[in-house]
């Protein structure tokens, strides 16, 4: 089945929040963000902004009728800052005006004065000063302290991982429309309509049911709109509440980049010990998460980092700790992988170091420590199957690792200035929200008397193909043609209390809820068919290709007849159903439990070519064996794998998020924050699927696919280091990501730094950007 939105997308007819027909008298908002990263607000002057013709209002914290608080887990985040600002770009005021241009002009006239407070951008500095969000966490298994002595070899290191800007092509936006009876309807670009509803109600001081959030689709989210769409929706709602008119707020790219959080940068200290043949006996890691100014989802992100700190490996003695460190950056947030990539990155660095010390290929060490069925994770869950081993072996044999190794060795011995490298990257990613209660969803299904069907779920279509998957699931469950099924917008009046669309779990949760709702309707229809056709046993009825079958035989009755007759006989043709993932739990006091419904696994081989003279490189190929379960839709799943991979490759290579020591974002435009483009991606991408790996839980045996493939991209980091080693075997390179051409070149030529240090050339003293 093709993506049901695809044709509309290609015609430019798909509507995003601000494409909907504009209501008369709509006003437009723009946000005044703090110019400083940390300070006491001494003065906020918007009198000049108010004078700009066309400006209708300038709203500040004082204008919030309810509670100025939008923190999702910990209540530490005001919608509009009042006494203090904690990051550059933090919203202080919202200007409402007759056009977006006028609103921005108004923003330009606002001035503020601050008493400067010390600015922290480094998570270790924050940690040392006690700037910790929530409480530090530790997962432990075995006896690490006792295990070091048994190791033949112990190495240590520090990983420095950069953040990542989401670059959803559609920036944050929302339109709020006041309706009768103090109701506000918000069309938001959010992954979490309920979060927007909850927060807007709190801001306005009304009950949840006064706020309606409606989402047709969003132009990409990747986690960036899981929690951080909330303030945007709230600011639009505040504007609409205050002016009584529809208000639209669309951040432009530079505002979006400056005001919203990104993937968390981490600094992680590790220590790892192994036997002389490469069996890992002990591992210890301390993750310092750069959380930014507020809690946002940081504690949950950290939790997943801890869970994935041993990636696909069994380590008998491990102590895995982490802390969310408060810094003066925009609050970092969910991003595809949700802390998992950082956890995996560190253990891969640690294994690389062991391999180097033992002078063995890294994949030999990796293979020796792969998870087997029944192995324990450091949080007490047992690994359920042999798929890690199977995916690994399958990858190595079907893509001929031996051949790759020989080919690359030969190339490297024959070439001087150009080197090739490769790396094998296994991934084992847990599926479920790690916060157990969030693993719930509901669906609402209506059958109309003409036999057409309307489905609403709490899931958001953001490009991941949810709508198509739900239609496919409903088609299968009903046994009727897909043309009969229409997927509705996601709306808080039809589905209450939905969890965000995240954690790769959206199809699992909402698909299962849809199946349950359809089962209710079918059960009623079948009971009715027993009477109507005078045939026994309702379970003997099935529906296939719109025909009603009894024990597989055509009864002559069609879907249309059945529905119509059922209606006349006053049979209910609508159902609402609820699904909660069974058998998952976690005890935070003991740091033990079974947080995941299952794991998605796979292995990738990444090959690169490095121009050692200029530090530039190409990613030549990525070859993957991925565990997909029984795919619901291969086209969509492939798209998820390739798209996730691109983001993973970008994270460890090009995507160079930079702030200065004043907490100002330097990589503040797409001109200087580069994401993969068409030429960056490898020409050769191959994906094979692990067979017989169906999930019992996913709808029709399918498995989650959104996040895990991103982490294959981490392989590029190690492939590049392999190539760098081939050029400079005498050097050791710090595990700092992303590995930009600059980092590569500087690492390959450390002598040059010495040379020019002596020369001490004056450099011109310009401060302007050199563009």
């Amino acid at each position, binding site marked *: 089945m093709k993506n049901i939105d695809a044709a509309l997308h290609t015609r430019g007819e798909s509507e995003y929040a601000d494409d909907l027909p504009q209501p008369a008298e709509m006003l437009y908002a723009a946000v005044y963000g703090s110019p400083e990263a940390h300070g006491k607000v001494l003065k906020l002057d918007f009198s000049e902004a108010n004078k700009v013709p066309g400006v209708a209002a300038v709203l500040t914290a004082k204008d919030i009728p309810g509670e100025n608080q939008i923190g999702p887990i910990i209540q530490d985040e005001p919608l509009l800052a009042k006494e203090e600002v904690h990051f550059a770009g933090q919203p202080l005021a919202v200007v409402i005006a007759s056009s977006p241009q006028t609103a*921005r002009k108004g923003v330009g006239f606002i001035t503020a004065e601050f008493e400067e407070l010390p600015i922290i951008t480094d998570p270790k500095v924050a940690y040392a000063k006690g700037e910790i969000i929530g409480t530090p966490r530790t997962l432990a298994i075995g006896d690490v302290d006792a295990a070091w002595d048994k190791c033949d070899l112990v190495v240590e290191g520090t990983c420095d991982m950069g953040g990542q800007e989401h670059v959803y092509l559609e920036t944050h936006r929302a339109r709020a429309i006041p309706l009768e009876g103090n109701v506000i309807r918000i069309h938001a670009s959010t992954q979490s309509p309920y979060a927007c509803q909850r927060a807007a109600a709190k801001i306005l001081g009304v009950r949840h049911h006064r706020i309606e959030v409606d989402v047709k689709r969003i132009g990409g989210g990747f986690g960036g709109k899981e929690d951080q769409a909330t303030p945007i929706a709230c600011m639009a709602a505040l504007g609409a509440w205050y002016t009584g008119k529809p208000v639209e707020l669309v951040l432009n790219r530079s505002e979006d980049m400056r005001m919203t959080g990104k993937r968390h940068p981490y600094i992680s200290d590790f220590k790892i010990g192994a036997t002389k043949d490469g069996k890992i006996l002990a591992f210890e890691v301390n993750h310092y998460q750069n959380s930014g100014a507020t809690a946002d989802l940081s504690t949950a992100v950290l939790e997943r980092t801890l869970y994935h700190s041993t990636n696909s490996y069994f380590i008998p003695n491990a102590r895995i700790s982490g802390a969310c460190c408060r810094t003066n950056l925009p609050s970092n947030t969910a991003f595809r992988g949700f802390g998992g990539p950082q956890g995996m990155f560190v253990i891969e660095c640690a294994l690389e170091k062991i391999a180097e010390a033992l002078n063995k290929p890294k994949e030999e060490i990796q293979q020796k420590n792969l998870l087997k069925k029944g192995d324990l994770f450091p949080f007490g869950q047992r690994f359920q199957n042999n798929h890690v081993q199977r995916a690994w072996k399958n990858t190595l044999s079907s893509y001929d690792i031996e051949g790759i190794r020989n080919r690359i060795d030969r190339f490297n011995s024959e070439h001087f200035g150009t080197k090739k490298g490769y790396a094998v990257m296994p991934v084992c990613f847990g599926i479920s929200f790690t916060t157990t209660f969030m693993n719930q969803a509901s669906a609402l299904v209506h059958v109309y008397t003409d036999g057409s069907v309307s489905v609403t779920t709490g899931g958001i279509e953001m490009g991941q*193909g949810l709508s198509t998957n739900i239609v496919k699931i409903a088609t299968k469950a009903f046994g009727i043609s897909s043309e009969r099924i229409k997927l509705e917008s996601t709306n808080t009046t039809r589905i209450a209390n939905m969890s965000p669309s995240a954690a790769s779990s959206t199809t699992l949760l909402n698909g299962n809820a849809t199946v349950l709702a359809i089962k209710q309707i079918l059960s009623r229809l079948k009971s009715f068919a027993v009477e109507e056709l005078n045939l026994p046993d309702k379970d003997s009825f099935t529906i296939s290709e719109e025909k009603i079958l009894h024990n597989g035989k055509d009864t002559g009755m069609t879907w249309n007849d059945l529905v119509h007759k059922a209606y006349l006989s006053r049979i209910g043709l609508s159902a609402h159903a609820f699904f909660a993932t069974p058998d998952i739990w976690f005890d935070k006091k003991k740091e033990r439990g079974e947080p995941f419904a299952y794991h998605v696994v796979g292995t990738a081989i990444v090959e690169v070519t490095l121009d050692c003279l200029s530090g530039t490189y190409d990613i030549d190929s990525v070859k993957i064996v991925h565990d997909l379960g029984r795919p619901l839709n291969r086209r969509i799943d492939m798209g998820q794998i390739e798209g996730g991979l691109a983001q993973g490759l970008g994270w460890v290579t090009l995507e160079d998020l930079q702030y200065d020591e004043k907490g100002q974002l330097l990589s503040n435009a797409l001109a200087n924050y580069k994401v993969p483009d*068409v030429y960056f991606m490898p020409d050769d991408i191959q994906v094979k699927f692990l067979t017989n790996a169906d999930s019992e839980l996913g709808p029709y045996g399918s498995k989650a696919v959104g996040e895990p493939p991103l982490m294959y991209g981490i392989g590029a980091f190690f492939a590049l280091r392999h190539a760098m080693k081939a050029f400079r075997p005498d050097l050791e390179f710090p595990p700092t990501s992303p590995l930009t051409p600059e980092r590569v070149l500087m690492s390959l030529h450390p002598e040059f*730094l010495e040379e020019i240090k002596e020369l001490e050339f004056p450099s011109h003293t310009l401060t302007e950007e050199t563009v």
Partner: protein
Amino acid sequence: MSISTQFILNDQDIQTNFHPGILILDFLRQNEKLMGTKEGCREGDCGACTVIIGELANGKVTYKPVTSCLMPLGELHGKHLVTIEGLNLPELSPVQEAIVEEGATQCGFCTPGIVVSLTASLMEKGSEISRDSVMRALSGHLCRCTGYRSLIASETHLLNAVDNATGTDALLEKGFLPGYFRKIAERLNKIPSSSKPDGVVEDFLIAGGTDLYIQENKAIPDSPVTILNLRQELKEITRKNGYISVGALTSFEEFASHSDILEIIPEIEEYMFLIASWQIRNRATIGGNIINASPIGDMTILLLAMNAHLVLQNGIGTRTVPLTSFYKGYKQLDKTNSEVLTEILIPVPAKKTRIHFDKVSKRKCLDIASVNLAVRVEEEDGFIEEVGLAAGGIAPIPLHLKKTCSFLKGQIVSREIMEDAIAVMQEEISPITDIRGSREYKRLLARQLVIKSFIRLFPKRLSAEEFYEKY
């Protein structure tokens, strides 16, 4: 001021008195409510806002894709503006079909722009559909969802459907473009040429706008503007005695595809791969690159190495200055406000001349250089008779490496000479630390690019190994 701009938007005649400096993107979404054109960055970097511009010349309309977020409305006068809505047919077009079939759209936000560019590539008469042509059409687009493989795979579908019958006429014949395209030339012909007097210099002189709008986006809609592109005579490339004269308004694409330029810079198309994107190259002018005076301007660096001269014109007369002495300091030019750059004179190099240009940026394509370097040498058996060297990103101005050139002139190329030349260069350059790299990195990169370029130009005399004996 109220100047009427008259053009055709898809199938519709438009006459508007809007400020000529407002962006086409804003006009489309805010005034025409054509929502298929998306805003992803407003800086030319994402392609979501791509539209096609048709221009009439010799009775034929030629079409090319541009980013509507950097192009002034006023420039549409007498032109055909095509948006995604204007490409839609009752059924899906081959481009749309290919994207649907390959699953090459996810969130869909980038998709209309991509459809527009791919269609534009089919509208180029005589163009061949290939992996390269598809990738070129995608060069100015970001898609954060798909990872591009499925988009590239549209090639097969396009080949099947279009069968290399490219160009608007062929597409019309197959029913792959709406029928109204047939009458566009006729309709454009009826639009009277712009009434704007030439030679008036207003607050803002807009050429391609690809630098200016990024710097002055807010101010332009409130200021008087001159739209240089309405002056067709500034777009010509001609041969004069010993020079090739390039009109200042020549776009990068026009420059790189002109036979006279290909003759003197045979590898220009290769360099273009490293420079901007298809849409931007259709807009970016050579003159704009020079006047913008960015220290990393790629064409400026190339032209510096080629010892180009500039012809500047004011109301009274013209004068010629060598590019090598045009830059006085950061964004300070040997030019008065009333002067317009009209042509660039490139001396036709001697037969044995060889040219090389290289650029390193974080991302290989559609990125600004950390350092770029251009070399022009005339040599005989390794003996350098004449040399032009210029580098960007290493000084407040696009830098002609004057001292390095005079050092190299008259030398026989060897590793030692190159090491010495690099030492001279290090004295000449003064990079700063910024988002494109630390000053140390830029120094190292400048050195590496000199080594790489000379190895490429003198493969028999130099090899990479020699430069690493020390390590």
